[in-house]
């Protein structure tokens, strides 16, 4: 069982709040609209439970479009950005503007979603790396379509993996779009993350 002290949990939420704030700023620049993001709720849960929470709309498994990137360094993680599949084209339209014809927009949908994922995930993870004063090497973004369980499986997480789930609501003024970010870490990576959190706390207390 993996546990964090109250102080470690507080620091983790604060660090991810900063990272998500950066991602929100990036998202706003992409869609050219004010974006409000909810305070992230963070939980460590089994993959099966994460899939259930991520992909349910009125009790039915929702089709999701996901972009994942693998990061290695201070801690290893698979970061996954997920949107409902039926919102994907709308997001790409907001990104590229009205000038691009629908046919061309549809053709570039996957590539554009990869770039949006790349920008948002790197914005969040890059901020975490800066806070930890360590470097995280990211892979190229991968595009996935399916249920949340299928996407979590496709990104290589094992049936019994622990998912550090960060649930974020994206609130656009004109477009009600809900997105999710999940970080999948195995037990070894969770301990590495805990070590980084404690170094951050020590620095904050002037002990390093």
């Amino acid at each position, binding site marked *: 069982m993996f546990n964090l002290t109250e102080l470690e949990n507080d620091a983790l939420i604060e660090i991810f709040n900063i990272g998500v704030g*950066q991602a929100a700023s*990036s998202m706003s*620049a*992409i869609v050219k609209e004010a974006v409000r993001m909810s305070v992230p709720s963070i939980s460590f849960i089994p993959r099966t439970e994460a899939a259930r929470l991520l992909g349910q709309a009125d009790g039915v498994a929702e089709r999701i479009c996901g972009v994942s990137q693998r990061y290695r360094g201070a801690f290893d993680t698979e970061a996954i950005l997920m949107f409902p599949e039926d919102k994907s084209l709308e997001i*790409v339209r907001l*990104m*590229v503007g009205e*000038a691009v014809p629908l046919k061309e927009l549809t053709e*570039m949908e996957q*590539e*554009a979603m*990869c*770039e949006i994922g*790349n*920008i948002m995930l*790197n*914005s969040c993870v*890059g*901020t975490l*790396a*800066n806070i930890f*004063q360590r*470097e*995280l090497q*990211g892979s*190229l973004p991968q595009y996935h379509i399916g249920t949340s369980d299928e996407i979590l499986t496709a990104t290589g997480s094992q049936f019994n993996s622990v998912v550090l789930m960060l649930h974020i609501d994206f609130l656009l003024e004109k477009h009600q779009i809900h997105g999710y970010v999940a970080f999948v870490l195995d037990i070894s990576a969770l301990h590495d993350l805990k070590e980084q959190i404690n170094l951050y706390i020590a620095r904050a207390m002037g002990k390093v």
Partner: protein
Amino acid sequence: MTTTKTVLIVDDSRVSRMMARQYIAVLHADWIVEEAGTGEESLVKARHTTPDLILMDVNMPGMGGIAAAEQLRQEFPAVPISLLTANVQTATRERASAMGIGFVEKPITEARIAQLLATLEAV
């Protein structure tokens, strides 16, 4: 009044190249925009087009943007190069600084492109 310039955009994302091209056209309709989808391709394009400015993504298949920028810096020491990347990590900024090249973070916006082009406008 500025003379026509050539800008080389290096990015594996077609959408990002398209957006950068669009913003350059808004600011300088007469400027020439060349594109490369990989670091390797950027070396070939730069040798053929002698750009006045190179905008370089970092995370790309193949040699990647940092290695390409290093090689381009050696071959074209007078040409300004700037990373234009989603990788906002301090380590990447420091690497750019050590190489004597610029750093602008994504997403690509008109303001950020204007900031990059401003260095050429006075020349």
